[in-house]
């Protein structure tokens, strides 16, 4: 029976010397067959399993993870959550995700520490200002909150930013999404894992998928794994960065290139930044974690890579931009640097829904922004797996768009050319 977390439980466990806590999820051995198998035990995979069980009542579900849950991109991102997109299809989808995040802690009975501290995208020229107003207009038309900030308002809100006219990146204004923010990335994974497990989902770690079993009609009949074969007729793939490799195993190609995306965290500082701030000119964005570390991200590495470490020129570009824009941080030391491998698609929008292989469904191509989409990615893939039809929000994001040409070019929406 699942333990319910509350202030009272914390108090009671404190009295008992913290010895009464139970594991938050089981570690079962794989069963010979499942109704649905989800490949990838990150945020998207676990959210998919959770919504399969909760919304559609499908409880014979396995989540297969080659390492440990949340050890891939879910544990390597910069935790930003936002829905400041331009096109209607994107705005609807990411706004749905943001709304799910707003009530996620309550729904999962797990504190994901979602903090709506806002996100400011800086405008560094009069042209940027015009584009920011255009973006704000598009966002408002799509029902997403958007505000334009004057330089004076930005100076008040972000005192460490170099606002002087001689600055290397002068500031002419900024676009604010107040409801954007950050969440604790591990907590999102663990919250979904615990909630899915409580509904009967088997979370199987250290279980790498090595191949697909196919029937005479080409449809999937199961997966080969490092822990033996598992029979199933419905498979969801949620393996950010490695989607091409799974597709190759199944015999098709995706419009995806894998790149390393690096991030950094500084030593803990006293509070200096109460928002997420992005500079589209440099691709650098930053927030301060609840522990005090500055969490810093930048653009992609320069060439395709599966090496989860990143290269030096990008580190220099990112940290050089931070030092130029925030002179007070010039001597701050970094604690850690890491890289995740991301699925980059030509139009910078995800691929959700059917694959060329019957029974095999995709949740991939989130590029550099998969974390904010965890709740909606899980919702859409679960709907597809349960009903075998695309979720209403997912329809524009099918793989067919690369044949029909109906691309959703959101490179501008992210502010980063990815």
């Amino acid at each position, binding site marked *: 029976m699942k333990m319910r977390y509350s202030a009272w439980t914390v108090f009671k466990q404190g009295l008992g010397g913290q010895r009464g806590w139970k594991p938050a999820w089981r570690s079962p051995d794989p069963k010979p067959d499942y109704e649905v198998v989800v490949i990838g035990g990150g945020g998207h995979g676990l959210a998919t399993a959770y919504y399969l069980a909760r919304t559609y009542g499908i409880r014979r579900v396995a989540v297969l993870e080659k390492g440990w849950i949340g050890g891939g991109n879910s544990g390597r991102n910069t935790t930003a959550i936002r829905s400041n997109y331009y096109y209607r299809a994107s705005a609807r989808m990411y706004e749905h995700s943001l709304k799910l995040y707003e009530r996620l802690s309550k729904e999962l009975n797990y504190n994901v520490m979602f903090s709506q501290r806002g996100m400011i995208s800086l405008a560094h020229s009069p042209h940027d200002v015009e584009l920011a107003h255009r973006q704000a207009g598009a966002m408002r038309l799509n029902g997403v909150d958007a505000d334009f900030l004057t330089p004076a308002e930005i100076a008040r809100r972000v005192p460490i930013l170099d606002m002087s006219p001689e600055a290397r990146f002068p500031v002419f204004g900024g676009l604010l999404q107040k409801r954007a923010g950050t969440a604790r990335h591990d907590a999102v994974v663990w919250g979904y894992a615990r909630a899915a497990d409580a509904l009967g989902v088997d979370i199987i770690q250290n279980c790498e998928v090595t191949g697909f079993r196919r029937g005479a009609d080409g449809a999937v009949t199961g997966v080969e794994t490092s822990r033996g074969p598992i029979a199933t007729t419905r498979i969801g793939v949620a393996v950010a960065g490695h989607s091409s490799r799974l597709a190759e195993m199944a015999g098709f190609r995706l419009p995806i290139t894998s790149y390393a995306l690096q991030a950094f965290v500084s030593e803990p500082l006293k509070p200096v930044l109460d928002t997420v701030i992005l500079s589209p000119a440099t691709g650098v964005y930053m927030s301060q974690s609840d522990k005090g570390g500055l969490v810093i991200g930048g653009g992609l590495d320069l060439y395709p890579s599966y090496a989860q470490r990143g290269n030096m020129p990008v580190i220099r570009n990112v940290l050089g931009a931070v030092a130029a824009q925030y002179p007070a941080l010039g001597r701050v030391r970094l604690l850690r640097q890491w890289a995740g491998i991301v699925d980059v698609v030509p139009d910078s929008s995800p691929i959700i829904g059917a694959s060329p292989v019957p029974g095999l469904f995709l949740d991939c191509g989130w590029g550099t922004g998969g974390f904010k989409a965890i709740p909606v990615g899980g919702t859409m893939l679960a709907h597809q797996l349960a009903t075998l039809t695309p979720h209403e929000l997912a329809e524009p994001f099918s793989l067919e768009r*690369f044949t029909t040409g109906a691309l959703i070019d959101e490179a501008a929406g992210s502010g980063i050319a990815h």
Partner: protein
Amino acid sequence: MLQISCPWCGPRDEIEFRCGGQSHIIRPGPPEEIDDATWGRYLSEKTNPRGDHLERWLHAAGCRRWFNVARDTATHRIRAVYHMIEAAPAIDDEGSAR
């Protein structure tokens, strides 16, 4: 940091270069016989392997010429550098960069 041997300029740091993605892509044709699915695949589908990858590079901050690189995407090791018109080297080719 990679050091890449441009066939014309010699070894330079990676920041002088741009990677142009997969090489040896053949444009399907003639155009009037190409269906949308084939054209879509030509425009967007990539090999994207974990391991040996044949790709085009541009010496953007140097001679501004294109050439091919055989590179491992997991280790970043460069196995060969060769001209655009040359055939791809065999996958076990240990040829050093020229």
